[in-house]
């Protein structure tokens, strides 16, 4: 398997430029479910590497789409509460030639946002090594967005890419985690076959372009009043009562208040990758 991948990489390096370089690295992404929690949640994430760019995403949106399509076909009511949650809450696209990272948000209601970032990773490479998926990997450390990271990369796959926004090592990053192990990405498979893609979501959705700074500010406001827009809609249309699935009348003001309170509490405890 290892030899096949290396041969494949050599092949694409020396073959005609019209042949697209395309393969997938699957990472297990695990994180503490909340700040200061010992419980860990994990999810499959994928780094789809194309000729000129790469895309990093979680399988959750893809699974959610599949479940919803299947429910619709079967005439079943979609159970939104049972859909898989996206642990990342974003898609990351990297254009390594320009060292550009594009962040596409996937966590809001009315609008989604994108911002371009050019992170300057300062890597310290050590001689410490181990094996991951049969590749010899070397330890490197860096700091990013308030966390100290340890990464293991392999020069046997000479692609300067990695999970999430990480890149810039002389080989593919197969494992990376922060020192508190709040967030951990570990490669569990490399394949030439692209099983899932997120291209449709990125191309079909309208993302409002903003800067990272504005995005952070906007998110900060959002988590203080996550249902602000729904409150506005309720007040402007004066729909204060609504029947639930059982036909019972529900006081929407009370429900929205309770729900917003719950959401604020969730946001307070969330274990964000970027501090």
């Amino acid at each position: 398997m290892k030899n096949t991948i290396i041969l494949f990489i050599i092949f694409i390096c020396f073959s005609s430029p019209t042949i697209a370089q395309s393969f997938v690295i699957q990472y297990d992404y695990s994180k503490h479910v909340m700040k200061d929690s010992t419980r860990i949640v994990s999810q499959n994430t994928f780094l789809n590497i194309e000729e000129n760019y790469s895309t990093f995403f979680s399988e959750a949106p893809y699974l959610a789409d599949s479940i919803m399509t299947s429910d619709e076909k079967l005439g079943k009511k979609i159970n939104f509460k049972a859909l898989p949650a996206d642990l990342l809450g974003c898609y990351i696209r990297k254009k390594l030639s320009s060292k550009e990272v594009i962040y596409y948000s996937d966590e809001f209601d009315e609008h989604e946002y994108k911002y371009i970032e050019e992170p300057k990773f300062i890597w310290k490479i050590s001689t410490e090594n181990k094996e991951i998926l049969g590749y010899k990997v070397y330890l490197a450390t860096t700091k990013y967005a308030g966390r100290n990271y340890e990464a293991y990369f392999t020069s046997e796959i000479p692609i300067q890419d990695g999970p999430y926004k990480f890149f810039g090592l002389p080989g593919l990053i197969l494992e990376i985690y922060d020192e508190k192990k709040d967030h951990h990405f570990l490669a569990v498979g490399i394949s030439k076959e692209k099983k899932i893609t997120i291209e449709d979501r990125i191309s079909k959705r309208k993302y409002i372009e903003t800067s990272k700074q504005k995005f952070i500010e906007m998110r900060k406001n959002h988590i203080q009043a996550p249902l602000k827009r729904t409150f506005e809609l309720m007040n402007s249309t004066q729909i204060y009562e609504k029947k639930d699935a059982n036909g019972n009348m529900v006081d929407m003001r009370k429900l929205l208040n309770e729900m917003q309170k719950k959401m604020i509490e969730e946001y307070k405890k969330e274990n964000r990758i970027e501090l």
Partner: protein
Amino acid sequence: MTKQFFLFLALLVFSFSYCNDNILIYKNDLKEVKINTVVIQKKYNDKIYDLKISVGEGFLGKVASFSIEVLDNDSEFKNLIVNNREKIKSNLLEIITNSNSLQRSAIGPVLTVGNCVSNCTKTWQCYDQPTQTGTALCALDCVLECAGA
């Protein structure tokens, strides 16, 4: 001829596995991410033996396999391990179960209220409704849906 060849191949593989010094005590279905090896010394009948212990590690540090190799090429001690393989395995399974559950109890991702509302409003394109009333009705339905009311 083909049958004979496969029979020969099977015998060859069997003989190799039988002759292997590495005594596989336990192996489960977890994908091995790496193998950790450590050489330990064990005293038995006033003789100290060097044992190479290999522990296959799955994702999240879970134990995927366990094998022992007697480095001193001593058949007596090797036979002792082979004869007590089941006992060792049963003790080991107890340790592994505890260690795996203590180390990291990975659970499936949880859906937050925010995720639920966001998924729902996007699916029904609530914010693309032609009227504000349509948008409000749609968004409030999603709130009801995610509140479980």
